[in-house]
């Protein structure tokens, strides 16, 4: 039986270092492996022995695209362990800074990294020649997200203003008002962006994912909620390990996360949207319906539409929070360290980011466990690749290669986070 191998030795337009190997024997895909070779980063190990107050600045370094996800998950875990609840305007400000991260991360991915795939263009620089207005729109969206990050976080990359209990400094009403004009413009841009990406030619693919996301009683999830799935999971975040496990695989320096009972699952925009459509503002729901996006979308290529929807949501949510803002009396709730275990789970742009920490009496970290979204999606990415490559076996390798890269970018994977990821190789035999 002849075998053919297709390799992508270094995947572009994703964050981090990884590669893809597809093996085809006869008329079947026998293996699709996402090889993550970015070196392990040992964050969980070097958090041991560090004081709880240091952690937001340490975990922010896991990722330059989604530092807020790591900061939010760790501060919630600390507060959980120390028996403190952060509420009111401090909680609202946490949602606001998370909106900033969603806007800038999603805008970068939707327009600058993923849209070129649908337009048959090599990259955003080439796209700027034919679609300059759209690239300008992305830059404006990104700037709106960055503004939030800078105002609340001190700077847009690796922000420094988040602390356990709240913030080092909270903004005045007047400072938040400076964001409004750009956010209102961003909301209009996001609306146009949803309508534009919804017209892309989407490969015909439906996958039977088990969606996993946070679900809150009345909010589209960012910082808080129960862990739910499209099958039967509805658990407290502290019970994550009862349903999910991580496994080493030979071809990846990132652990693979799996459902103990059913294997691969999906986190991220498609999952959040499917499980929380009813929590979106009516204006956002109406736009999704206008562009023909079903309430549950199982076509991974349409994740670009859902990301654009979530940009719009984040703009609206940010404006809502700013309108209702009254500066809190204190920038942070005081914490009293105690021995214990705390859990944090928040919705990074790419999906749930789950943390567990064990603290000593003085608040130093005895053990840390961080499960980033990309490691949770790896098995689903590989399953998608096998299906996509299998549908293109009569096509030249270059066609297979391009579609497989696009398939990976459906996930906006952050390889750097997950190794704590890309090349494509197709083997035909």
């Amino acid at each position, binding site marked *: 039986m002849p075998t053919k191998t297709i390799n992508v030795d270094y995947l572009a337009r*994703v964050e981090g270092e990884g590669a893809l190997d597809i093996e085809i024997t006869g008329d079947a895909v026998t293996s699709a492996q996402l090889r993550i070779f970015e070196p392990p980063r040992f964050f969980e190990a070097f958090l041991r022995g560090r004081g709880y107050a240091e952690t937001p600045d340490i975990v922010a370094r896991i990722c330059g695209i989604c530092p807020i996800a790591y900061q939010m998950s760790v501060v919630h875990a600390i507060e959980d362990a120390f028996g403190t609840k952060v509420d009111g305007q401090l909680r609202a400000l946490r949602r606001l800074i998370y909106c900033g991260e969603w806007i800038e991360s999603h805008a*970068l991915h939707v327009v600058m990294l993923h849209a070129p795939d649908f337009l048959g263009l090599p990259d955003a620089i080439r796209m700027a020649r034919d679609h300059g207005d759209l690239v300008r729109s992305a830059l404006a969206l990104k700037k709106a997200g960055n503004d939030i990050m800078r105002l609340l976080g001190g700077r847009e990359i690796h922000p420094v203003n988040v602390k356990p209990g709240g913030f080092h400094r909270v903004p005045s009403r007047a400072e938040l008002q400076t964001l409004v004009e750009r956010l209102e413009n961003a909301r209009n841009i996001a609306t146009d962006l949803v309508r534009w990406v919804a017209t892309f030619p989407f490969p015909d693919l439906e996958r039977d994912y088990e969606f996993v996301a946070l679900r809150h009683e009345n909010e589209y999830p960012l910082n808080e909620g129960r862990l739910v799935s499209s099958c039967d999971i509805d658990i407290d975040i502290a019970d994550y390990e009862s349903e999910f496990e991580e496994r080493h695989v030979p071809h990846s320096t990132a652990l693979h996360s799996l459902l103990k009972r059913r294997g691969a699952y999906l986190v991220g925009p498609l999952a959040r949207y499917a499980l929380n459509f009813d929590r979106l503002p009516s204006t956002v729901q109406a736009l999704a319906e206008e562009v023909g996006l079903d309430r549950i979308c199982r076509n991974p290529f349409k994740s670009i539409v859902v990301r654009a929807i979530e940009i719009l949501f984040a703009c609206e949510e940010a404006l809502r929070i700013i309108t209702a803002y009254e500066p809190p009396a204190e920038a942070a709730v005081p914490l009293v360290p105690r021995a214990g275990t705390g859990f944090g789970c928040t919705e990074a742009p790419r999906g749930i980011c789950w943390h567990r920490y064990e603290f000593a009496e003085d608040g130093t970290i005895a053990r840390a466990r961080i499960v980033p979204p990309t490691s949770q999606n790896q098995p689903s990415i590989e399953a998608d690749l096998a299906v996509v490559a299998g549908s293109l076996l009569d096509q030249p390798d270059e066609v297979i290669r391009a579609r497989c890269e696009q398939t990976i970018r459906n996930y906006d994977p952050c390889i750097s986070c997950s190794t704590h990821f890309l090349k494509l190789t197709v083997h035909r035999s």
Partner: protein
Amino acid sequence: MNDPAHRRIAVLGIGNVDRGDDAVGVGVAHRLARRLPSDVALLVCNGDILGLVEDWAKYDALICVDAAAPMGTPGRIHRLDAAQDELPPCPSLASSHAFGLAEAIALARELGVLPNPTIVYAIEGACFDAGGAITPKVAAALDATAERIITEIGRMNSLAAPAET
């Protein structure tokens, strides 16, 4: 340019001050802080350069200072005219973090917002370790680069003087 007698010039220092010689662009910007004509904009970028691209349309001339990959001569100053020539791409373009200066300039060129001239001073680094300081040979290039930029601005303004128009 709106006023042909006076160019709107910006100097942009780029770098991460926590990564050894990568700080050199920011270091040059700091040396220029009180020495530039008051109408020259001094910008510093520690992270997201994409956020600056659209703003470049406001300027008639742009001078960028950034660290260059090691090529055997730490501290050597390279001067490139980016409006005329393409810069070599960042070696880690595959990363979504890596919209580096070369990619930002290429994007600005496609969007029609790249000032002409755009001059890049690229200073060869030696060590980019996290938490490291600027190495001595690269530090020695800080003043020399600042002086060259002041001279460059003087030349740009004299070329734009009324007698020239």
